[in-house]
Structure formats: C-alpha cells, structure tokens
C-alpha cells in the first residue's frame, strides 16, 4: 500500500459506497480463497492483502437472535440477529417481515438493501420453507 493515500478510500467507505449502489459486497483473499466480514485492510489473523470484493449471495442462516423491547411510542420492539452468511463470515443485522420475537435460530434468511435513518443498510428476510 502506498504511504500517501490521497485520492483513494478505505474499505469501510468502499463497503458503504457499494451499498449506496445497491450492492452487498464482501471481501475475500485470493490466495486463501476465503471470505471475511467486516471489511478490513487485510485478512484477519493472517494478514493477506491480496483482497478482492465479491458480491455476497445474500443467503444466510440465523446464528442467534434477540427481541429488543422498546416502548411503542419510541418505535416498539425490534429484532437484532447475528447471521452466518453462506460465504462463511458472520454479521449483525435486523430481520424484518416477522414479529421481532418470532425469529428462530437456524432459519434461512436472505439479505436485501434497505435504509435505516437515511443510510443504506442490510436487512434480512426469512426465506419460507
């Protein structure tokens, strides 16, 4: 990596830019052929820097889930889950389209890009069956 970073952007901004374009992109190391999340400048733990961005399948499995209780006048209860992506890494996200306390560990979910407070955000929906 050149010392002078003028004119380039880091992986966090790149990830957000992709989301703004409607793409859910994650990084992989070419030599390891392994994915990781969240975005970083090098592969966590081993430091490979031969990274490329790949569009995620959006397929995932619920690893754990929680129903966060909140007063109705403040927006009501909401879901926070951890999703294991088909590509391997795990991420935090919200599952919508189902009551926040009705999400079940092991359920299949599918990502879509929505927005939260005006920022693009990855939201998951339960995949039927």
């Amino acid at each position, binding site marked *: 990596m050149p010392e002078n970073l003028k004119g380039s952007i880091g992986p966090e901004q790149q990830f957000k830019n992709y989301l703004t374009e409607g793409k859910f992109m994650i990084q992989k190391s070419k030599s390891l052929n392994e994915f990781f999340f969240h975005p970083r400048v090098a592969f966590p733990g081993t430091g490979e820097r031969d990274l490329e961005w790949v569009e995620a399948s959006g397929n995932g499995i619920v690893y*754990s889930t929680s129903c966060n209780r909140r007063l109705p006048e403040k927006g009501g209860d909401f879901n926070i889950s951890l999703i294991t992506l088909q590509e391997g890494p795990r991420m*935090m996200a919200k599952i919508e389209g189902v009551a926040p306390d009705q999400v079940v560990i092991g359920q299949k979910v599918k990502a879509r890009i929505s927005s939260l407070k005006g920022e693009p955000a990855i939201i998951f929906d339960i995949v039927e069956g």
Partner: protein
Amino acid sequence: MDYNDINKLKGKTAVVGLAESGCGIAKGWSAMEIMANSVHDALDDAGIKLSEVDGVFAATAFHSMAAMSLSEYLGVKPKFADGSQIGGSSFLSHILTAAMALDAGLINVAVVAYGSNQKSIGGFKTISEAMPYEAQYEPRMPVTAYALAAKRYMYEFGATREDLANVAVSARDWALLNPRAYTHNDGPLSVNDVLSARSIVDPLGKLDCCLVTDGAAAVVMTRADRAKDTKNTPIYLLGAAMEHHHRMVSEMPDLVRTSAIDSGKRAFAMSGYSPKDMNTIQLYDAFTINTLLFLEDLGFCNKGEAIDLVKNNNIGPLGNLPVNTNGGGLSCVHPGMYGLFVTIEAIRQLRNSSGDNVGDRLNRGWIPNAKLSIAHGNGGVLSSQVTNIWGVSETI
C-alpha cells in the same frame, strides 16, 4: 518460551489493603471523590502512607486518562502508571501489570482503583464508541450482546430461562447475608420473580441484568517481602492471565465459548492449582448467562453442564459451590465496571478466614477455612477475560 515460564510471578506480590466507597448511592459525590476515598481507605487498611505510592492503575467510564487524573487528584507522582481500558475486567489486568512492575522493581507500592457515580447522575454510563457495522441497527448494548449469547446457549444446550434464573436467585441469597449488598434488605427472589420481571432484551429480563449503582473500590499491592510488614493479612497473587478474541459481539467466534477458557487455563497453570481447589469462586456476573458460561469456561464443569451445577441453589449459601458470595453484580453492586469488586470479594473471603475483621455477615456469609479464591473479570461484550488466583501465604 512456554507460557508457563511466567510462573515466576506466582506469590511474588500481594494485596495488602482494600476498600470500597460510596457503593449503592453516593449522591453529592463525584466519581473521582469516591475513587480517592477508596484509595485512602485502602492505604489505611494496609498501614501504608500515600507518599509511598509509586504505581497508579485506574480505569473509569468518566475519565479518558484515569490513571493520570487519579494520580493528580491524590498528589502522587507515579514511576509507573497504567490506565488500560478493556472494560470491566480492566482492574484484573491492572493487577497483572502491577505485579509485573512490582516484580521488575519499577515500583514498590501500587494502587489499583475505580470509581463511578453513574446512578446518582442518571443511570448506566459508558464511554464506548458506536461499533461500526453494528450501530446502525441500534442494539441496546451491552444487553443485546448478552441476550444473543443467552439465546444461543439455550439453543445449543436446551437451557431454559429457569436455568438462567437460578443464577439470580442464588446471587440474591448471598446478598441477603451481606449487609454491604445493595439488595440486602430486598428479600429473596424466586425463579418466578425473575421470569416475570419486565423483559429488556429477550431472553433477558430485568432481574437477569446486573444492578445499576454507584461505587468505588481500590486495592493496594506490594512485593511479598514488604507485604509481611503490613497491618493485615496479605493475600498473594498466585496466578493471573488475560485473553480476548473480539470487541464487537458480531465478531465473537463462538457465542457460548469465551476466551475465559484460555485465561483460566493459564492462570491456573501459573498458580499450580485447579478449579477443584478453589474455596470461593468470584465471577463477573453482569448478566445471568455470564455465570453459566464462566463456570464452564473456567473448568468447574463441562460445556453445557452449568445448568445442572446451578440447580437447587447449589451455588447459593446452602449449596456446595460458593459462587459470588457478596451477591455479585446481580445483587450486591455494579457501578458499570465491576471487576475490582470481584477481586475484593475474593480477597475478603480469604482475609476473613485468616482472622482479619473485614466486616460482618449473617451466618454462612463467610466461607470457613477459605485459603484459595478465583476472581474472574469480564469486559466489553463477553470480550476481555482476565483471571486472577488468590491465596493465603501457606498456598504459595
């Protein structure tokens, strides 16, 4: 070099004084004022003059440079200071660092301190920054993280909310014996009380969560040779180790296995003792799930078996395993970062059984003949894990 070579720290340093200040509610006092109270009281307990303090270790949620702010407030000019902030376990890591600095001869007398007046000034106080890739979903940290771990634990091991509630019930039973505990006069809890309390983040209800109180604490450490000349019974650091694998809960490699597996193994190895040797067990119980995870990860039972270990009040005053004998973060005190209170309870039990007057408890509140205690600290969202093993002189 094998990690076990650090055995040379075993028994080289001791806590010779301790104190708490403003636990519960300290309205009208600042976090710094009660922290300084606890330092002066701990020095009095040790019989060591403030002017002898040359090592200062502190972390709070109120001071970005806590060791420096505390040193200035006390009027101490430390030769070594450390304000490492790894959450509620910081103080157990400060104790390890202080032991190294004392053993290396960099300092002669260390104080490790903490203070918080969060309750008096409006509630839970944190200086944690928003976590990238998590914050936009607005998790109610830290509760959401522990709820995710609890949910996964229930899924993997068939645990129920009743199993979690058993932890809170026993913690309260200990608090009823401890006049220092915030809930000392609140009466016992039933499993049903815990289950019917308002949910914060499912599956954790209000009584699965630690208290929100004020409170400050300090311990004084010195080398073993000097410790012999102090006012009260020195309690020796036999083992200490830390490890962490994540900062954000979404990065935790396995929600039901913490890095206490690693910190515990190395701390026990340094001490030469094993879980079955511990006479008292003090675990950072920010939430009921913590106690289950740490009993397993530190080797008191196999993975998934803590739910059986905590049944029938087995970790309460009438049980076989004395866990969180002050009442814990759930029922004694929790000013935001509880680590030093875990430490103080581990040491108080040993001092009491050595004949020191460390306060009154109701019958069974003090563990007879206690010679070895484990103090385990947790920080962040099941992130930083630090284990300390304490013993009386004959255990070295």
